């Protein structure tokens, strides 16, 4: 004796099965389409020149993204140097030590940090590492000496510096860009894009200890744009910290308590137990967590706009601006030259392959762990 509306309920069941299946297909489609188009457009532009040559100028043909690839590889070395030690050790703390309330707060904060937009991270490290370098050059005009091409600027820290403003120097300010038109009290920034650091340092007449310090920084940085590969490494590293901390904690939690107890019962001290037994057992998981975090930040572009800024040549120093693959793809994609667009597709193919390779590789290596996760 079936219920009177049995037919209707059965057909609704079938309908919803079909609808949810359709949605699942709809979800997979963009991945397939993106991959298809990138392979189709990018593959033809991949050649030996792509991996060895510098980017083409506007309207030029040929060229490659060799410097961008090198730049991204440099960042892939720098970022883990910041992210992995802090993340792993922090994860160790969350898993092995700490009171439940403190740990809950740290975990919650880490999860919120994971949600901070990458462009905000970019602004933060821009303020921390780029602006801090150029801080001496930004401030209020105290006096202008047109005859001797000098302008004295007092920066926000109250330090007064005198700069020689020659033909190659630019003054950044809303209206007045000429030394002649500069009024005292105007906010300026003195740009030295073409002059080497030691030159500038010699031209600064610091009136305080801080001024001496910043002059030394200029000399070290050898560039006054402030943008640097180091800043790029730092911002990507910062982004990795909360990710790695959480994955490390989870993996360490999976290590059976019996291991710790047996080790402690044998008289091994707690820290050795953690380092040599617990962490070693979980090492594979920790490494995969770090690799996934690395793959995640490898594709980030927005933070790089504010830190490494981009450059058309080979990277020379870590304290100078640099090109990176995602950044180069973006610049070429929004440009107006078909050759640039071809380069962008090729770059996207390489980047996508890198990211997918790590993701799929990691999944492959940990597949038995995931067998139960349906």
């Amino acid at each position: 004796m079936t219920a009177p509306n049995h037919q209707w309920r059965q057909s609704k069941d079938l309908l919803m099965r079909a609808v949810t299946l359709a949605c699942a297909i709809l979800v997979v489609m963009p991945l397939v389409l993106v991959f298809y188009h990138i392979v189709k457009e990018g593959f033809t532009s991949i050649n030996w020149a792509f991996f060895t040559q510098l980017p083409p100028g506007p309207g030029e043909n040929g060229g490659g993204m060799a410097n961008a690839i090198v730049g991204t590889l440099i960042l892939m070395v720098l970022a883990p140097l910041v992210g992995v030690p802090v993340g792993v050790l922090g994860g160790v703390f969350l898993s092995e030590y700490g009171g439940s309330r403190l740990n809950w707060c740290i975990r919650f904060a880490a999860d919120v940090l994971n949600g901070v937009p990458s462009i905000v991270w970019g602004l933060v490290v821009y303020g921390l590492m780029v602006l801090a370098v150029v801080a001496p050059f930004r401030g209020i005009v105290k006096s202008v000496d047109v005859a001797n091409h000098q302008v004295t600027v007092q920066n926000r820290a109250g330090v007064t510096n005198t700069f020689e403003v020659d033909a190659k120097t630019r003054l950044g300010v809303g209206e007045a860009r000429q030394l002649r038109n500069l009024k005292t009290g105007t906010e300026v920034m003195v740009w030295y894009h073409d002059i080497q650091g030691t030159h500038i340092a010699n031209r600064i007449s610091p009136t305080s200890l801080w001024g001496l310090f910043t002059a030394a920084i200029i000399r070290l940085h050898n560039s006054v744009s402030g943008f640097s590969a180091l800043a790029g490494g730092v911002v990507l590293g910062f982004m990795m910290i909360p990710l790695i901390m959480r994955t490390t904690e989870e993996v360490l939690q999976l290590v059976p308590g019996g291991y710790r107890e047996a080790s402690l019962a044998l008289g091994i001290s707690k820290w050795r137990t953690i380092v040599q037994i617990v962490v070693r057992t979980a090492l594979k998981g920790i490494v995969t967590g770090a690799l996934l975090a690395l793959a995640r930040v490898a594709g980030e572009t927005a933070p790089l706009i504010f830190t490494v800024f981009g450059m058309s040549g080979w990277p020379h120093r870590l304290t100078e601006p640099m090109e990176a693959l995602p950044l180069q793809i973006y610049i070429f994609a929004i440009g107006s030259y078909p050759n640039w667009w071809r380069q962008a597709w090729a770059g996207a193919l390489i980047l996508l392959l890198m990211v997918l390779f790590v993701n799929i590789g990691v999944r492959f290596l940990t597949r038995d762990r995931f067998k139960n996760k349906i």
Partner: protein
Amino acid sequence: MKRGGSHFGDRIFKWLTLLMALAIFALIALIGYELAANSQPSIHKFGWHFLVSSDWDPTNDIYGALPFILGTLVSSFIALLIAVPISVATAVYLTELAPLWLRQPLIMFIELLAAIPSVILGLWGIFVMVPWLHAHVFPFLRSTLGFLPFFRGSDYGPCMLAAGIILSIMIVPIITSVSREILRSVPGLQREAAYALGATHWEVTRIAVLSYAKKGIFGAVILGLGRALGETMAVTMVIGNLPQFVPSLFQPGSTLASWIANQFTEATSDLFYSSLFELGLVLLGVTVVVNIIAQLLLKTFAGPGVKPQH
């Protein structure tokens, strides 16, 4: 027998790891400090007016955030409108209805979609998605829904609607995987009880699973919203980048994140930079609040530990 040496080692190690864990709070403080400190000139000059002003005039050094705040909200809303039904349905399919052999491959595909860098999706958006929308979808929308102010007027491709669509593609994976975890954690007893009462497969899902998981799924949606609010590259490549907010979705616009990225290289004066920082501060405030709400919803959902996604 206490060996002084290893006791010392224990203390050092504990403090070392504690220090590293507290780095999280240091980072939060750093973010707050850098954004607040560098926004000071702009906050000082414009005050609250910044949030409700639509003027963006670099030549006269006047800046206002309103079009970008509204643009962020609208693009994210569109993204949610598209992504939420599809994601939740997919999560339901994956946990309840899909054949077992299909589940892992599908899950892997969706997690790979999440791994695609934003700039690559943006590149595809500029050259494939937007032209296709311009040629096929927008005319259709114009002819059917053109009576609404949202779908009026012509377009040349990049627009608010395109941004909403590409955002939806980006947030589908996160909503799907978190929803999947939520649905998985619904106790089997709920399902069995419904089956025992003679419910069909879909009815079991609707009555026993979804209503139980409502709060968690809502948390997943808010998490997706948080992701959509902060997304930069794909948006800036398909939204047209104009500092305006108009009713028509076929018109270009901007979001907070896309405008900061777009204007950074054009910034000239100190006040300009400071305004960009202030936009970042507004964005941070909105994203953090949304993320906190999402985390609270997910953590207090009555199920065994749901792993929060990136």
